[in-house]
């Protein structure tokens, strides 16, 4: 089942396993791409995944989550993406560019803008990242930016685009009843809150034409109350399903099911809260938000950080990490006829195959287990149900990436710490000295 091709609109994906959006701060501060990112993505192209969904590619610097990710914010970026696509295609692997505007969810903001754009003036609740409610003109501008970015992806001969509409990014900030507090045509009832995301999809479709793959990633369960208990839940399942129907009507070729009205979230990436790691890296983000002192204590100081870790992992008490979103993707599949891929801890061939057979999803996307085992699909081909050293969902990869190269930092998975560090730094191998730029 895993090895059957999957049609996402006009795009044929060679099997049912997609690399989900994951990558480190491999590029330049200004958003220009580097050979390091090419190395990173080639690692997965070589090892047989059905397709790669890029790391988050900002459509504008103000919408970047953190410096160090290649942008798709101007035509000057096209040659880099074309090069990356060409190299990935050499391995028969399609490449889908994930278009992102972080809105207020900027974990390390650039110099230029003090506040992130959002549906609201309210700061992001967990870190206190400042926000500024968008004017109608700004909304139109950002919609156009998405369309222009998609057109660039197409010009760069990439195979499709995916709108990062999940995980607390700007489209979530509009869609969520727990975040959007507008009183205009973009706030209030679901129809209004959905308008921004749907306009993005229509504008992209208009820009790229009918014969180009356009996907949309959506958090079906927002559960803001699982981030902080005093927050509202966010959208109901029924509301999210209605949005999925509308997305299909607006021209999306596939839906990508995720969870969480913010990122990170107890359900995504579901797993441990690695307190020791966070003590070393959260400080970098302190000044990005206004809750510096509260979070200094919450994330750095025992017993507060242990208490928060207990709180963070609570939703997992009655749920498995692997397949955590399968119930939701099954619900989505029942209301749309376009393919549905789902993320959430997948790394067992039988679990994935059964989910597809049962009709819970058409394919899965994987981030952490592929960081741990880039050759996971090869293991499946050889008949293994799981990689010999599976991902432990420790989340140390996530909580290291702000300061260190994105990699598996679970020492228990390696023979030695040295081996782990060698692996982590291997993404820089073979990056040649720069040659004269014309």
């Amino acid at each position, binding site marked *: 089942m895993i090895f059957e091709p999957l049609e996402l609109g006009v795009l044929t994906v060679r099997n049912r396993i997609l690399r989900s959006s994951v990558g480190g701060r491999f590029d330049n501060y*200004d958003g220009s791409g580097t050979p390091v990112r090419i190395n990173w993505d080639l690692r997965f192209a070589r090892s047989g995944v059905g397709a790669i969904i890029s790391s988050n590619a900002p459509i504008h610097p103000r919408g970047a989550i953190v410096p160090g990710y290649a942008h798709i914010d101007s035509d000057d970026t096209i040659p880099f993406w074309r090069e990356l696509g060409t190299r990935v295609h050499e391995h028969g692997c399609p490449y889908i560019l994930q278009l992102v505007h972080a809105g207020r969810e900027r974990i390390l903001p650039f110099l230029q803008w003090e506040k992130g754009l959002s549906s609201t003036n309210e700061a992001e609740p967990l870190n206190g990242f400042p926000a500024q409610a968008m004017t109608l003109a700004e909304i139109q501008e950002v919609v156009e930016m998405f369309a222009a970015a998609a057109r660039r992806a197409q010009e760069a001969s990439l195979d499709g685009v995916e709108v990062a509409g999940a995980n607390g990014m700007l489209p979530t900030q509009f869609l969520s009843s727990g975040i959007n507090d507008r009183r205009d045509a973009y706030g209030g009832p679901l129809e209004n809150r959905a308008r921004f995301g749907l306009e993005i999809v229509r504008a992209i479709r208009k820009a790229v034409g009918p014969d180009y793959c356009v996907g949309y990633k959506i958090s079906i369960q927002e559960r803001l109350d699982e981030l902080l208990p005093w927050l509202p839940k966010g959208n109901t399942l029924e509301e999210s399903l209605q949005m999925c129907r509308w997305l299909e009507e607006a021209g999306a070729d596939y839906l990508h099911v995720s969870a969480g009205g913010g990122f990170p979230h107890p359900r995504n990436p579901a797993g441990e809260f690695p307190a020791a790691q966070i003590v070393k890296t959260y400080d970098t983000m302190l000044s990005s938000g206004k809750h510096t002192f509260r979070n200094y204590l919450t994330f750095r100081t025992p017993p507060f950080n242990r208490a928060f870790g207990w709180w963070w992992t609570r939703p997992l008490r009655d749920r498995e990490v692997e397949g955590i979103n399968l119930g939701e993707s099954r619900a989505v599949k029942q209301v749309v006829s376009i393919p549905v891929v789902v993320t959430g801890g997948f790394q067992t061939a039988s679990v994935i195959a059964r989910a597809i057979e049962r009709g819970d999803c058409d394919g899965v996307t994987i981030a952490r287990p592929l960081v741990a085992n880039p050759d996971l699909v090869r293991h499946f081909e050889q008949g293994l149900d799981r990689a010999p050293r599976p991902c432990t969902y420790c989340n140390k990869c996530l909580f290291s990436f702000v300061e260190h190269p994105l990699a598996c930092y679970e020492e228990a998975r390696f023979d030695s710490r040295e081996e782990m560090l060698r692996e982590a*730094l291997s993404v*820089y191998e073979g990056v040649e000295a720069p040659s004269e730029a014309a």
Partner: protein
Amino acid sequence: MSAEAIFQPLRFRNLEIKNRVLRSNVAGRLDDYDGGGTQTRINWELKFARGGVGAIVSSWTAVDERGKIVPGFAGIERDERIPFWRELGERVHEHDCKFIVQLAHAGRQRDVPTVTFAKGLSSTDKPDPLHGFEAERATTADLEEIKRSFASAARRAREAGLDGVEIHGANGYIFTQFLSSAINDRQDSYGGTLENRARFLLETVRAVRGAVGHDFHVQVKISTTEHADAFLPWLGKGNTIDDSVQVCRWLEEAGADAIHVSSGSTFPHPENPAGEFSLEDMVRTYDVMLSSGVHTFRNYLMFRLWPANQVMKRRWERDPAEVPGRCLPDSEAVKRAVAIPVIVTGGFQQASLIAGAIERGACDAVSIARGLVANNDLVELFRQGHDLPPRPCTYCNKCLYNVLEHPIGCYDESRFASREEMIEQVMSVYTPAA
């Protein structure tokens, strides 16, 4: 014409530079995490080569992995790095500018440690007193290895066709940690008397000399006055100018071709770079360093919270002496003691001050960091007859306090027509792309 002395070539034993202004070590996190060099760094250095300085002293260049100060600076820690440095050198040479690599080892003073080692090596096992960077006392075997790393790095610099090396013995990095009476608490032959404390640096100079031969330029940078108590008053003063003059004599004997005078037992330090303590920038960027040391909560409060940070700012800025030429009395004392040329750093950007210092024998050349970050073409402006550039550096130190999170550049908005113009200047280092 008062600036004439600036444009006299300076002849070192093994190197000649066209004028008396060197770009001092100044750095941004422009490269890959692992220490691989990038086009961005080439763009950075070319700004100064084009602007007319006689020589560029590279940004802080690590000789080994554990000695890195912060990720994102090109290293010279293995042979694979040589092509990058060769390329950089060739591009700089096109502008009749020399390139000297600054070979450095942070010891315990690692602002943002790489993921590879938990503790820095030092003379001591005590953490750095300001941030609390943890330290492991280096064994004699460790010291042997570090000396070999310096020698190999110098050999690579020569192989890459660069014009010389500078051993970074100043500003609180590993050699200061040995030299300083306020830091070094060893009981072995590398601690105690000045002779013992200087031993590690002198042996390194000899090892480097042994690796590159007698016809290659080797200079040493040293904090001649340490002022170790300048900020935290409960610390010892550290080495005085008299101690350092003796060290400089020994350095000359050990084979150094020039001395580069700086000050301060740490970096940054109230004396270097002297100037403003930019609170608004610190609040935004010091958090990056919090977890690098053990004094996280104390420093969270001290750097971020009013009025603690006001008290800190006052203390930091307390010495009323002029910023420009602050180290000139020290360099004059060193010059009297040695026959090799003496370069001095510290806020220079005025032609008459520089020329006057050279003429009266207080130094042979100056090195400039901030003044050149603000005005890359400072030397060209001197040539055109400006005594001070039209928009001089204000010593606000915002360049320094932004460098961990943002590209190196001038962040003093008052020097630009608009914030947009300032940002454009900062981002220009990424053009051309690789």
